[in-house]
């Protein structure tokens, strides 16, 4: 048993501080906003030029001119603003985004991120705003499956895929654990009850240990 994508997104959402500015990457990370109540006053930034992205638009609300960086038709929160792409990345590079949560292919024990080039032959690269966000956000978290479909660890000693940015990831939320990137290696803060410490080690490449106060990783039932 492991967490599904919605449960992983829920878990990451619990650590966002009220009032923070957060940019969510495409794929699983964007699900995080579904679990943040508006009372927490968290402003979601979308790099195409929105501060204050609201829930996905219904068919009646949908406006083709109001999209987020994942091309989803969205709504705006009260207090939202819209600006051009240069202003958006000034906001990002200038350090005005508190947290970015990104998907990834690999994260190294030194916090290096590799999430823009999948290495599939002849498929062209897609970098989007990932490098700008990883380098510039005050905090970078990664939300990804612990292992690939063929059971290789996505947590690695050294990234084998082209880097997005060096030494930028602080925390990793996987389907089995919550892990901090520390100078002493991967430090497991929470681990799902069905996975033993030994299994975690076997499924992780790169030095990993449990924190002294490591807790059980739990999430409410949420369907996929």
């Amino acid at each position, binding site marked *: 048993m492991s967490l599904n994508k919605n449960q992983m997104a829920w878990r990451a959402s619990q650590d966002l501080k009220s009032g923070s500015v957060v940019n969510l990457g495409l794929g699983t990370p964007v699900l995080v906003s579904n679990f943040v109540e508006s009372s927490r006053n968290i402003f979601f930034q979308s790099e195409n030029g929105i501060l204050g992205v609201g829930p996905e638009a219904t068919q009646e609300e949908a406006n*083709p001119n109001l999209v987020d960086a994942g091309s989803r038709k969205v709504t705006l929160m009260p207090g939202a603003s819209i600006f051009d792409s240069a202003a958006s990345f000034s906001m990002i590079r200038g350090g005005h985004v508190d947290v970015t949560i990104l998907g990834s292919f690999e994260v190294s024990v030194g916090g290096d991120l590799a999430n823009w080039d999948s290495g599939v032959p002849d498929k062209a690269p*897609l*970098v989007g705003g990932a490098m700008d966000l990883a380098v510039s956000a005050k905090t970078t978290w990664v939300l990804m499956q612990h292992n690939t479909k063929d059971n290789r660890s996505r947590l690695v000693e050294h990234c084998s895929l082209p880097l997005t940015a060096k030494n930028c990831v602080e925390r990793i939320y996987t389907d089995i654990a919550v892990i901090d990137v520390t100078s002493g290696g991967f430090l497991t803060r929470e681990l799902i009850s069905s996975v033993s410490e030994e299994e975690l080690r076997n499924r992780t490449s790169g030095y990993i240990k449990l924190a002294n106060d490591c807790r059980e990783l739990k999430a409410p039932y949420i369907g996929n």
Partner: protein
Amino acid sequence: MDKRRQSAVEILKEVKNGSTIMISGFGEAGVPNTLLSQLKEIHPTNLTIIVNSVTRPHSLPHALIEADMVSKVITTSARGRGKGLSKFEEKLRDGEIELECLPQGTFSERIRAGGAGIPAFFSPVGYGTRLGEGKETKNIQGKDCILEEALTGDYALVSANKADRYGNVNFSYTQMNFGPIMATACKTTIVEVRQLLEQPMPHNHIQLPSVYVDHLIQSEEINHESQ
């Protein structure tokens, strides 16, 4: 002064082979589909296009590539959707087209710099990655940076909401994206809009000032999946 035109066809016929063309748009918002479909008919070749994304095979920027009009693409998002190769990816594999892939913020800032008279700037984004290879590096204020040069173009093709006869432009929601900066960085800017206004636009509605705009046309409804 009146920058409104009946059609952009005569202007686009002057686009020379080998020109550099910036194309606005992010997702469906702000893609100048009327101008792109007219440009495709006129069919200049050997173009460099500067566009955020060429991921969607049925979008008009991708259609210019399929029509063998493009020799170089400067973009942030080149990977075709799906597992198979897009026409662009096939051309890339076969060495028929050149790709310059940029981090999106660097893409934007290089265009902004191009319109703002800044020939180059240092940025930490991309340092130590494959996209920073071959670029001059410098440690500034403790940050490792790479030198990024400004981007300029011959034509900017932009889609917006409203414009007045003077060339002042207003955008709808996230249609703005790259339009205002691309308009500043090109010799000739053509903007297609949903509505052309007879009266001057109130100054606080203006998101792109008239000085950057050369020609305005009315958008046609084009039923085409945009990028």
